[in-house]
């Protein structure tokens, strides 16, 4: 599927995510720490992702990859453009509808040590999204937490551990369990394997592939490692100085 031109009508039914002419700018301070200037994180970015597809996104540090990831889960508000997810324009949604749409797209970060609250135990970390979205009774929540730990192949004894008591790979499994808690349809993986050793990267990548097949997930897989992206993704896009192009 190619890059779609910008329109304001919903994309085709098989398109899960369509991003159209998305632009994000930041206000940065000059060296004198007083004057401000506008920095463009990315400009007029458009792409589409089919349901069940894995789209790879590569690019050097500072090219706008992470800003794009943050925009997709609405942690940043873009200046212009549209984000269509499952036939809805996310940027036009109000509070309740937005909360429900947010369940469907989950973001996994590179550094699990800073992404996870150091004071919470694994049970609370994995159960937190369930509690926020009122999953059900305390028993149902505990059952779901255990189920999630099994899905990411973590021993149940880890429920009482805190992030610093886990290895990098184990922490990233907790982050994946947390992301899967609300049965999302799209995972945005922002350098999710980059901080891990080569063999642990392989273990987590294999786990993600199993989960993708089991739950028919779509991935936006962001990384600077071309070999890794090519092995995981169906299509690869490259971002350079805030602009996106598809690699053949």
């Amino acid at each position, binding site marked *: 599927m190619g890059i779609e031109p910008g329109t304001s009508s919903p994309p085709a039914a098989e398109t899960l995510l369509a991003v159209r002419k998305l632009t994000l700018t930041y206000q940065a301070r000059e*060296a004198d720490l007083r004057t401000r200037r506008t920095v463009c994180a990315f400009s007029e970015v458009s792409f589409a992702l089919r349901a069940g597809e*894995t789209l790879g996104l590569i*690019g*050097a*540090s*500072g090219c706008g990859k992470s800003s794009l990831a943050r925009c997709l889960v609405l942690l940043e508000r873009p200046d212009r453009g549209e984000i269509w997810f499952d036939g809805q324009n996310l940027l036009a949604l109000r509070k309740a509808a937005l909360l429900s749409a947010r369940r469907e797209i989950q973001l996994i970060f590179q550094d699990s040590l800073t992404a996870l609250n150091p004071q919470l135990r694994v049970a609370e970390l994995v159960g937190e999204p369930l509690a926020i979205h009122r999953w059900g009774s305390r028993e149902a929540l505990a059952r779901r937490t255990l189920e999630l730990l099994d899905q990411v192949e973590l021993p149940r004894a880890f429920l009482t551990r805190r992030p610093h008591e886990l*290895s*990098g*790979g184990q922490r990233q499994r907790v982050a994946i369990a947390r992301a899967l808690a609300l049965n999302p349809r799209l995972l945005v993986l922002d350098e999710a394997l980059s*901080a*891990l*050793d*080569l*063999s*642990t*990267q*392989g*273990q987590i*990548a*294999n786990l993600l*592939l199993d989960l993708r097949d089991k739950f028919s997930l779509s991935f936006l897989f962001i990384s*600077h*490692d*071309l*070999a*890794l992206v*090519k*092995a*995981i993704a*169906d299509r690869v896009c490259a971002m350079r100085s805030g602009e996106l192009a598809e690699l053949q």
Partner: protein
Amino acid sequence: MSKLLAVHGLEVGYSDSADASTYALKGISFEVASGEILGILGESGCGKTTLAKALAGTLPKNTRHAMGHIELEGISVSPGAHKKQKYDRASKIVVISQEPSASLNPVIRIGDQIAEVYRANNRWDKTRVREETQALLASLGLPDSDIYNAYPHQISGGQQQRVAIAQALASQPALLIADEPTASLDAETETGIVKLLKDLVLARQMALIFITHNPGILVDFAERTLILYAGRVIEYGSLRDVFATPLHPYTSALLGCMRDPSNSMNSRNGGRFPTIPGSLPKLEQQHGCNFVSRCPQRLAVCGEQQPPLIHNASQQSVECFLYGH
């Protein structure tokens, strides 16, 4: 090449573990010559950073014991944080760390941070310090005077790492230890930093210990390699020999995890990533090899006795029963 550093029987343990038999490093022995690049390869938690700190004499306060023999330019130094030696050693062995932003002071301008090292080591006037700092920055590909006056947060990660290298070089060290210096950088910037380090070793005839978890970086870069696993040296030799014919099952498995962009493996065709099953064991005094629980070629004796260090004809050493008892 003359011998610069010799390490023999280095052992380090930390006191935050309740169990007195645990260690971070054990029985570490190797040598580094001037002008040589040694690549130290190992997974997270195998003791790579502890080794860098023991060599630089900057082990943290919770170190329970640091034993063994370290000889720098023929003079014996203590692996622990010995106060007087620490000052002498500081200008000879310099460590650059993984996170450049953490090694730079966020509220001091880049140029002043490097000038500070020159002032501490030389009796130069202000003009000379400024000229030397600018020349050093220019030689590392940062000629812009904006960089001299910038604060660390205003420059990119790759530039920050170049500044950290400049700061390290300002004391003219005999040995530079780079502890995963490119782990937080993208592939293009990583290649630039590796090339820069290689050129610097050649130009200054200093030695470089490059610590990494990624074997791919060391190809065409390091001359010799040392494989660390669970606090022990399990294989040691010339990089070409170790990468062409790895002897230890762990080395084979680790090199087997390397990825090649030209490889056609794709997850949609049922492709799986190679991994090493299991995880790093707890580092404690135990009978037998540390890798035994994950080893596909284990023998009955592997779980009972510590494997001997065996040397082959091409100076490749391995700690494994597969090559003799």
